[in-house]
């Protein structure tokens, strides 16, 4: 089943509410996906600086990791949130930090990278996961989130969405892909490494591959209609916006609402019911095999 949500804010006065609204949307969809949850939030960013989101097995391990990073890299600011930490550092120091992590702390995973994006995911009920990371207090321009009912691979944090597809890009998915094993082999030949058996990680890898070959995200989504076999609704976050794509059959539910202040996506209307001014919004179902995109 699974649930996905997305909220893209058009009116800056609503930005302080981004985390609170997204947390409520995720909590509503807990019964579509009680196994794990994850979300990506696009907050403040600085030119010349990269944010890396790191994940450890336990909060203690992450507190320790954050200390060691601050000690080893004087330009880096590491802020721990439960099992995750966001490290802000100058762009040119990123390769060095990643090499250092691989050497010194190979168990620490880099789950997101970009100017503005922070990615959090954990096993557990979505409302619990959102509370652990204090999503409600986060601010920013847009966020996407996922509540997972596992079908194609195990209930682990690795199997939780979102999957990062590149700098400031990530993907959440409702559905199941039937040709992911074959596609994983193709992508492995292209040099992509996969951490899980999860089908969504393959979809994320596929989009990264197409964009590496020079396609825009918009075009990468369009060609995915030919290459990905299965049922899916994707919501993709980028530095400045978010995109939505449903497969040609459009079995997986999707509903969108737009007002002067925001564009919102939900697997069901219930997820949108608490948004401000929803009763006066334009509400519609995205068409199958059609790429939708909002930017600011």
């Amino acid at each position, binding site marked *: 089943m699974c649930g996905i949500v997305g909220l893209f804010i058009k009116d800056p006065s609503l930005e302080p509410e981004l985390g609170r609204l997204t947390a409520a949307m995720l909590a509503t969809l807990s019964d579509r996906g009680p196994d794990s949850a994850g979300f990506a939030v696009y907050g403040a960013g600085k030119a010349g600086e990269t944010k890396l989101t790191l994940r450890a097995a336990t909060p203690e391990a992450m507190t320790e990791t954050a200390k060691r990073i601050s000690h080893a890299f004087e330009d880096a600011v590491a802020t721990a949130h439960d099992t995750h930490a966001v490290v802000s550092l100058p762009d040119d120091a990123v390769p060095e930090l990643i090499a250092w992590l691989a050497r010194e702390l190979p168990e620490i995973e880099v789950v997101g990278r970009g100017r503005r994006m922070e990615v959090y995911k954990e096993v557990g009920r979505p409302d619990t996961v959102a509370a652990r990371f204090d999503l409600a207090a986060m601010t920013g321009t847009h966020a996407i989130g996922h509540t997972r009912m596992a079908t194609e691979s195990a209930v682990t944090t690795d199997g939780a969405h979102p999957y990062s597809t590149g700098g400031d890009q990530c993907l959440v998915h409702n559905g199941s892909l039937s040709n992911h094993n074959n596609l994983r082999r193709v992508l492995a030949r292209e040099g992509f490494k996969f951490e899980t058996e999860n089908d969504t990680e393959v979809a994320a890898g596929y989009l990264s591959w197409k964009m590496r070959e020079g396609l825009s995200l918009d075009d990468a989504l369009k060609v995915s209609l030919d290459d990905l076999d299965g049922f899916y609704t994707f919501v993709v976050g980028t530095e400045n916006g978010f995109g939505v794509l449903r497969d040609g*059959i*459009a079995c997986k*539910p999707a*509903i969108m609402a737009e007002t002067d202040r925001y564009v919102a996506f939900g697997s*069901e*209307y*219930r997820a*949108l*019911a*608490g948004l401000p001014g929803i*009763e006066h919004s334009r*509400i*519609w*179902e995205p068409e*199958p095999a059609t790429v939708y995109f909002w930017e600011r």
Partner: protein
Amino acid sequence: MPDVDLGSTPLRELNAALHRLHPDTNERHWLIDHPAGRHAIAAGLNAPITVEINGPVGYYCAGMNQLATVLVHGSAGVGVAENMMSGFVHVSGDASQSAGATGRGGLLRIDGNASSRCGISMKGIDIVVRGSVGHMSAFMAQAGNLVVFGDAGDSLGDSIYEARLFVRGQVKSLGADCIEKEMRDAHKRALHGVLERAGFNGEVDASEFRRYGSARKLYNFHVDNAGDY
């Protein structure tokens, strides 16, 4: 007149109260507020009552309905009035996928658009959509009438049996074994009757619609049709 606020009353409590009603009940008009897209609101009714819902409903609203009139002042989620047996369901907004799916009787009226698979496997229900319907509508439709004032998406009436489809606007494509058929006087009269029961008394001209139905070539397996299955 019972007035139930779903913001404070649990949905199961409401549905249980509606299910307890006898056919000769005096509580014949119910108002429901703050539905907030909850699922299965007023599903399984079996009494000649009217239930008015103020706001958008979620999945399977008024599913399996018998005898009751359910008025949704808002939009409806997946499978509104699915497997309806009799009665009347009226959605003032849009309806999501599979509206009226497998319905055996009664009338479903949707004032906005219905998305994909509207009337899938319908078995006698009448569905009137004032807007347009999405792809694969009336898939494997067996009996009843689907009336669309606007357009129909891809593969209308795929693998259709004996249901009658009337569309006033454009049909993007017809599904396997679905063809356009001549609109004779008898069909215009039948369509006029459906429109009248849906509350469009004389407002809509039945002769503006085109009729679609089964070519009846897929009823029995024939190897030349293998590609169409």
